[in-house]
C-alpha cells in the first residue's frame, strides 16, 4: 500500500511522522508527572513504528502513472476494516456494561473496570470508532464517485484516517486511566481535542479540494450531507471544548463555561453531535448506497432539498430539550421544544424520500439483506426522529427524562438507524472495493441482518418498558401524599429489563462478529479479473471524457 505513494509523498509522510514523534517526546517530557506523559509515550511509540515502516520503503520506485486513472480507495478499504474492529470492541464494551448493570459487582475492584470509566469507552468506541471511521471511509468513496474525481493527493487521506484513529485511541485509553472532562460525548481532554481540530480541518480541506476537482456540474446530495457533517462537527467540537489547561504539563483542563451556560453549551454540542455526526453524515451514506443498491432514482430531488435545509436549520436550536425542567430558563426550553417539534417534518421527509426511492425495488428489499439493512435503517430513522420530537415535548419529557426511555431512544437511533445503514453500506462497498461481484456468503449477511434486527428490537422494547415503569414509579404518590416508591425499588423493578437489554446487545454483537468473518473471507477470495474497473474517466489516461449528463 505504501508502494502506491510517490517518493515525494513518502517523504512528506516521513516528515509528518517525525513531527509527530517530536510532539510525542515533548508531551512525554512535559507531562512526565501526569497522565499526559503516558499519552506522550504512546504517541512517540506509534510515531517511531511509523518512521521505521516509512524509511524502509523510501527506496522503492515511484508507482506507475496509471494509478491516477483509478479512484484512490486504499484509505477506504483500511477505514472499513478499522471501523469493523471498533464496532466489535465498542459493542463488546457496551454489552459488558449492560451486564455490569445487572451484576454491579463485576468490577473486580479495579478502577478501570468501573461503570463510569467503561461507559465512555463504549460510547466513544461505537460513535467515534465505528461510526466515525465508517463515515470517513465512505465519504472518501462517495465523494470520488459522485464528483468523478480522484482524491487530490495520497497523503492527506491517510493523515485524516490515522490521525482520527490516534484521537480515538487516546480517548479510549484515557478513559480507562480516568482522564475525562466529564462532558458527554466530549470526554477527551484538551490535548486530544486540539489534535482532533487539526485532523478535522485537514479533512474539511481535503473534501473541499476533491469537490473543486469534480467533473460533474452539480454536487450530489450525499456530499451536502457529508459537508454539513464535517463543517458543523468542527464548529461544535471547538466551541464545546474551549478550556484552560491546569498547566501544559497536565492532562487536566477546566472548561471555559460554568453552571447553566456550561450545561447549555454541552447540550447544544451533544444534540448537534446527534444531528450532524449521527444523522447528517449517515444520511450522506444513505443517499449514495441506497439508490445504487436499489437501482432506483432518488424519489424526489425537491424533497432532498427541503429536508436538508430543514434538518440543518431546525436541529441547531433543539439542544435545550435535554435540559427541560432544570435551572435553564424556561424561555430557552420553549425554543428547544418548539424547534424539536418542527424538526419532525424534514426528518420524516428524509425518511420518506428514502423509502419511496425503494418503490419499484421492493422485490430486491425482500431478497437482498444488504438492501434490507438500508431499508430497516430508514424505518428506524423515521421512528427515532418521531420519538425524539415527542420526547422533546415538555409534558412527555417530565416522564421520560433521566429514565431508560432515553437510553432506548438513543439505541433505536444508534442500532436501528446508524449501525444498520453502516452495515448496509459496508456490505455494498466491500465487494466493489475488493473487486468481487458479491460478498463471500449472502447467507451470513442474512444471519447478521436477523441478529441485528432481533437485538435492536429486544433492546429497544426492554428500555421502553423499563423507562416508562421507572418514570411512573418516580412520580406515583400514595394517599398520604408521599412518593410511593423509593429509588431502590425502581432499581429492583428494572432488573429483568436490564437482563433483556444485555441479551439484545449480545445478539447485536454476535451479528457484528458474523459480519467481520464474512468481510474477511470476501477480502480473501481471489479477485475476479472481469470485475469492471471503476475509474474517474473512461478512456485514455489524462484525457477527461465528458459524460452525457454534462
Amino acid at each position, binding site marked *: 500500500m505504501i508502494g502506491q505513494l510517490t517518493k515525494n509523498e513518502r517523504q512528506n509522510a516521513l516528515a509528518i511522522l517525525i513531527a509527530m514523534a517530536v510532539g510525542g517526546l515533548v508531551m512525554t517530557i512535559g507531562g512526565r508527572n501526569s497522565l499526559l506523559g503516558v499519552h506522550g509515550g504512546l504517541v512517540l511509540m506509534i510515531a517511531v513504528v511509523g518512521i521505521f515502516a516509512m524509511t524502509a520503503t523510501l527506496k522503492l520506485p515511484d508507482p506507475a502513472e496509471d494509478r491516477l486513472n483509478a479512484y484512490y480507495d486504499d484509505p477506504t478499504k483500511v477505514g472499513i476494516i478499522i471501523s469493523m474492529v471498533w464496532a466489535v470492541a465498542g459493542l463488546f464494551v457496551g454489552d459488558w456494561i449492560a451486564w455490569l448493570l445487572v451484576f454491579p459487582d463485576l468490577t473486580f475492584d479495579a478502577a478501570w473496570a468501573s461503570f463510569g470509566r467503561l461507559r465512555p469507552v463504549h460510547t466513544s468506541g461505537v460513535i467515534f470508532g465505528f461510526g466515525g471511521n465508517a463515515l470517513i471511509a465512505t465519504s472518501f468513496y462517495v465523494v470520488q464517485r459522485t464528483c468523478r474525481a480522484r482524491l487530490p493527493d495520497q497523503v492527506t487521506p491517510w493523515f485524516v484516517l490515522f490521525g482520527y484513529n490516534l484521537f480515538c485511541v487516546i480517548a479510549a485509553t484515557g478513559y480507562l486511566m480516568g482522564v475525562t472532562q466529564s462532558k458527554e460525548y466530549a470526554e477527551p481532554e484538551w490535548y486530544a481535542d486540539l489534535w482532533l481540530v487539526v485532523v478535522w480541518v485537514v479533512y474539511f480541506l481535503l473534501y473541499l479540494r476533491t469537490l473543486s476537482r469534480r467533473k*460533474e456540474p452539480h454536487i450530489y446530495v450525499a456530499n451536502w450531507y457529508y459537508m454539513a457533517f464535517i463543517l458543523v462537527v468542527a464548529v461544535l467540537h471547538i466551541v464545546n471544548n474551549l478550556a484552560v489547561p491546569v498547566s501544559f504539563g497536565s492532562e487536566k483542563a477546566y472548561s471555559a463555561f460554568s453552571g447553566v451556560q456550561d450545561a447549555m453549551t454541552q447540550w447544544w454540542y451533544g444534540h448537534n453531535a446527534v444531528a450532524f455526526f449521527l444523522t447528517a453524515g449517515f444520511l450522506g451514506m444513505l443517499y449514495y448506497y441506497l439508490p445504487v443498491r436499489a437501482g432506483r432514482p432518488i424519489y424526489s430531488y425537491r424533497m432532498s432539498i427541503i429536508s436538508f435545509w430543514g434538518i440543518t436549520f431546525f436541529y441547531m436550536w433543539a439542544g435545550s430539550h435535554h435540559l427541560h425542567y432544570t435551572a435553564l430558563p424556561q*424561555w430557552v426550553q*420553549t425554543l428547544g421544544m*418548539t424547534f424539536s*417539534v*418542527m424538526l419532525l417534518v424534514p426528518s420524516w421527509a428524509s425518511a420518506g424520500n428514502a423509502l419511496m426511492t425503494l418503490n419499484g425495488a421492493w422485490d430486491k428489499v425482500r431478497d437482498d439483506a444488504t438492501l434490507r439493512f438500508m431499508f430497516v435503517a430508514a424505518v428506524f430513522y423515521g421512528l427515532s426522529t418521531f420519538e425524539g420530537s415527542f420526547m422533546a415535548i415538555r409534558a412527555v419529557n417530565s416522564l421520560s427524562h433521566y429514565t431508560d426511555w432515553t437510553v432506548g431512544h438513543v439505541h433505536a437511533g444508534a442500532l436501528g438507524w446508524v449501525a444498520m445503514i453502516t452495515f448496509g453500506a459496508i456490505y455494498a462497498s466491500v465487494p466493489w472495493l475488493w473487486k468481487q461481484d458479491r460478498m463471500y456468503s449472502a447467507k451470513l449477511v442474512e444471519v447478521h441482518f436477523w441478529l441485528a434486527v432481533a437485538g435492536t428490537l429486544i433492546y429497544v422494547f426492554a428500555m421502553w418498558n423499563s423507562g416508562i415503569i421507572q418514570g411512573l414509579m418516580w412520580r406515583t404518590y400514595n394517599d398520604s401524599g408521599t412518593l410511593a416508591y*423509593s429509588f431502590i425499588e425502581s432499581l429492583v423493578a428494572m432488573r429483568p429489563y436490564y437482563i433483556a437489554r444485555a441479551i439484545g446487545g449480545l445478539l447485536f454483537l454476535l451479528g457484528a462478529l458474523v459480519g467481520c468473518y464474512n468481510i474477511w473471507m470476501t477480502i480473501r477470495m481471489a479477485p475476479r479479473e472481469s470485475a469492471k474497473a471503476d475509474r474517474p474517466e473512461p478512456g485514455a489516461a489524462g484525457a477527461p471524457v465528458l459524460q452525457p449528463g454534462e
Partner: protein
Amino acid sequence: MAIEERDSHTGYLTTGHEWNGIKELNTPVPKAVYVFLIATVVFTVAYIVLMPAIPLGVTFTKGLLGLDDRREVTRAVEDAAAERAVWTKRIETGSYQDVAADPALMRSVRQTGRTLFTDNCAVCHGTDAKGGHGYPSLVSGSPLWGSDADSIAETIRVGINATHPKTRVGQMLAFGRDGILQRADVDNVLDYVLTLSGQPPVRKATPEQLAAGKATFAAQCVSCHGEDGKGKADLGAPDLTDRHWIYGGDAQSILTTIWNGRQGHMPSWEDRLSPVDRKILTLYLMDLRKSP
C-alpha cells in the same frame, strides 16, 4: 445540457443529472409535507405567544398564559405540604403513644416511613431494616442505644460517631492491636465470650483457661458490656449473650473484633431530615420491631 428522462415505474421525469449511475426524480414535494410544516409552525407560534419565549435583553416575554415553572413548582410543593399537613401536624404535636394508638395515623406512618427508610437508610441497614455485616438490625436483637422512642429519635438526630456536636460515641477498643491484652488473654476471653451466647469455645479450653477468660472479661469488658454481658445502652455496647451480631458471631469474627476494635459510623440526620420525618422514622422503626 441535461437530458431528462421519464421513470417508467413512477412516471415522473428525472432532473437530468446523473452521478455514477444515481439519478433523481423531479417529483414535487407531497402536499402532506407542507401541511405538517405549516401545522408545526402554527403550533410553534401559538406556543411562543402563550409561554415564556423570547429573550429581551435582561428579561423575556412572559407569555399570555402567565405560566412560570419556578412559581408552579413552589406552589405545587406548598399545596402538597398543605395536604400532608392534615396528618403530619398531628404527628408533630402528638406524643409517641398517642400516634401509635391511632390506626389511621399509623397507616400513613407505615406508608411514608417505608419510603423514607428505603431512600435514606436502606443502603446501610437493608430494605428490610435487618442490617448486614457492620450494620445492626433495627428490628431484632437488643438495641445498642435503648429501645424507647426517645432514644431511637436521638440516635437518628445526632448519629453515632458522627460529625454532630452531640453525637453518640461508642467504641470497641482494639485490645490486641493496641497491646492492652496479651494474645493468651485474648484467646481466653474469646472462649469466654463464645460461651456467653451458648457457643462452644474454639479449643478444648481447660477450666483454668475459661476462668482466666472470665476474669479478663470482668476486668476489661464489664465496664461497657455489663456484668452479665448484656450490654449497656448509655455506651452503645452490644449484648454479647444473644445470637444477634453486628460483625459476626463466629470465633474468627469475634477475634477480629477484640483484636482490632470496632467503631461503626451512623450519620446524623438532623440537617438532612425534618423533625416530622425523623419522628415518622422513629415510629416506623418501633412499629417494625413490634411486627417484623
